[in-house]
């Protein structure tokens, strides 16, 4: 693809450093954040940019994640461009504030470095933190690599602040796997990022026009609450097109084209894996190996989890014979992980639809090697051949019995 960026630099840095670099290039008005593993190196790196005058952001070292999101809400309502970052327990502590941010239609961008929720306490990757926050009215973007984490951070600003969206965005990458491993990726020039994200001027704010005062966060009783929640649904449903518009604009700048999801060798596939995050890389590797053995397998790697692109997913998967959905979080007490349940529901009204099986993997940072992906593909092939019926119960991959 032809790109318009004047120059891009190849760097070797961690996913977290890449996100901090994107934040530096965005130079937000306000950052309010609290340290938590494995996100901490983002706020540390950004604190360095502040301390050395590389950015002139107002950086608030809050005393908790609850106050981080509270201060972000205050700053965003004030009219500022606002960013923050968190993981796991920090996101859980922000819980109350997440739906207030989206309901107030505040375009806050948050790097969420996925880490397992306690308990037991654990610092490693799974998606239970952000998946637990999936219904809070935020847009959710998932990255497979440091490159994608960097790129999504920049795109998140444009998506969040778009006049037809005005919603907060969570941009995810995998704790330690992506956050702390040094990766090789391309970064844009500071001036190109600055131009791409542009200037931010909200329609309503506390500070810009105090002579026409606005009240944020009023008390809405049954006569008004429901309609405001409807507006949130309309906004997040409609954000899908804006996500793609910004994604396409970004492709023109960087040469890197993303979608709502990536289809890998899906065209002629009989079976496929649906996955998101860093495990997509391992999956791609296994698919290539199994394709060489004649197995017609592909992958659908989800990038945009909210808004959930149900229609597009149904279209991409309906012609397949069997699909395995891999979730790095478990929704205990129901059919399986959230990606599985929602993907299955997306296909329910399709005239043609594949057999589906749900898999949970990698909880609390349990290593997920090619063998587990091979197991899933092997299972799906058996279903296609009629050797096994599709499993109703979720399969826990890599768990010790």
């Amino acid at each position, binding site marked *: 693809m032809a790109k318009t960026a004047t120059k891009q630099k190849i760097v070797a840095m961690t996913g977290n450093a890449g996100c901090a670099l994107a934040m530096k290039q965005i130079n937000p*008005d*306000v950052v*309010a954040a609290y340290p938590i593993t494995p996100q901490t190196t983002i706020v540390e790196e950004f604190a360095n940019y502040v301390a050395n005058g590389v950015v*002139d*952001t*107002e950086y*608030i*070292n*809050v*005393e*908790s994640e*609850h*106050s981080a999101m*509270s*201060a*972000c*809400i*205050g*700053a*965003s*309502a*004030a*009219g*500022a461009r*606002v960013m923050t970052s968190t993981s796991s327990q920090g996101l859980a502590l922000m819980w*109350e*504030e997440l739906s*207030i941010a989206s309901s107030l239609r505040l375009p806050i961008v948050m790097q969420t470095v996925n880490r397992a929720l306690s308990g037991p306490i654990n610092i490693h990757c799974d998606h239970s933190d952000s998946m637990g926050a999936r219904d809070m009215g935020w847009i959710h973007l998932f990255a497979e690599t440091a490159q994608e984490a960097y790129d999504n951070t920049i795109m998140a600003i444009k998506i969040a602040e778009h006049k037809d969206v005005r919603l907060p965005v969570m941009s995810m990458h995998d704790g330690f796997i992506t956050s702390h491993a040094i990766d090789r990726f391309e970064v844009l020039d500071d001036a190109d990022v600055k131009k791409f994200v542009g200037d931010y001027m909200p329609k309503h704010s*506390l*500070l*810009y026009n*105090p002579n026409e*005062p*606005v*009240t*944020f*966060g*009023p*008390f*809405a*009783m049954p006569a*008004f609450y429901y309609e405001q929640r409807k507006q949130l649904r309309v906004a997040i449903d409609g954000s899908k097109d804006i996500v793609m518009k910004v994604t396409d604009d970004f492709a023109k700048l960087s040469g890197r084209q993303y979608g709502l999801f990536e289809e890998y060798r899906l065209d002629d596939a009989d079976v496929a894996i649906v996955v998101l995050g860093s495990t997509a890389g391992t999956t791609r590797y296994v698919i290539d190996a199994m394709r060489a053995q004649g197995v017609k397998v592909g992958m659908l790697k989800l990038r945009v989890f909210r808004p959930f692109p149900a229609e597009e997913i149904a279209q991409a998967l309906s012609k397949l014979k069997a699909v395995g959905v891999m979730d790095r979080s478990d929704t205990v007490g129901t059919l399986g992980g959230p990606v599985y349940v929602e993907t299955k529901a997306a296909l329910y009204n399709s005239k043609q639809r594949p057999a589906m099986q749900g898999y949970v993997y990698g909880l609390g940072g349990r290593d997920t090697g090619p063998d587990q992906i091979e197991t899933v593909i092997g299972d799906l092939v058996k279903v296609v051949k009629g050797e096994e019926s599709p499993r109703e119960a979720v399969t826990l991959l890599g768990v010790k019995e």
Partner: protein
Amino acid sequence: MATIKELSRKPELLTGGHRLCAGCGASIAVRQVLLGANDQVIAGSATGCLEVSTTPYPFSAWKIPFIHNAFENSAATMSGVEAAYQSLVRRGKIEKKMKFVAFGGDGGTYDIGLQSLSGAMERGHDMVYVCYDNGAYMNTGIQRSGSTPFGAATTTSPAGKVRPGKPQQRKDLTQIMAAHDIPYVAQASISHWKDLVKKAEKAFSVDGPAFINVMAPCPRGWRTPNEMTIEISKIAVQTGFWPLYEVEDGEWKLNFKPKELKPITDFLKPQGRFRHLFKPGNEHLLETAQAEIDKNWSRLKKRCGVE
């Protein structure tokens, strides 16, 4: 400070028509505090009576920009607003001088919002935090808070056969805030409007965080007649239940020094929430209440260098 005539000509920033009860101390506290502001003010409030009664969507009683976020975070929220202001001024996007004030009741300040308040004060934001203290969670129906006085009957510390109301003494939040060593901390009462407006003026004028704890009675929770609000807040001051003082750059100053304190029973007797304390056999509870006042008053005088 402006004269009462001049103050009467200042525009009302919290307009009438809000749904607070007749005799509510909260709106009086807010209006007196806002009279102390001489620049553009941006206000916020914790969840509570003040917030629900002044912003019933689609109406708002606030004639200045206002934000309500949640219960425990009005200080953190306002710290974000103030930080945004500093940033946007630095970047040349805003020129107008603005001041920031966050309000919270005692539940949202002494209890659930204490961490958020402490953090905001420690970080040194240029903002004023005002607690309108009515001594219980009044919005949700008079539940006990860390500010509820000893012996008071609330719906979660009722006066029963074996428990005579709240068994603990109140938390001294004003002194906790003074321990933050911020530029200005004060305790004030809506009964002493001149003192309160002056304190608000000082709080708005300092460079950095300021805290004011305002006595703001609740007729519903205190079981007092609506028309007694100002009188009972005055008695709170006269009995030493609510001393008026300020801590300015570390200097403690007592603002009201009666020759002799009135007995605490003058404050307790008119209030239905203390009725049970006056039943025969409960004399020791009244003695405990008085002893606590005497102890605190003597300590405060010492701190303020008054004998």
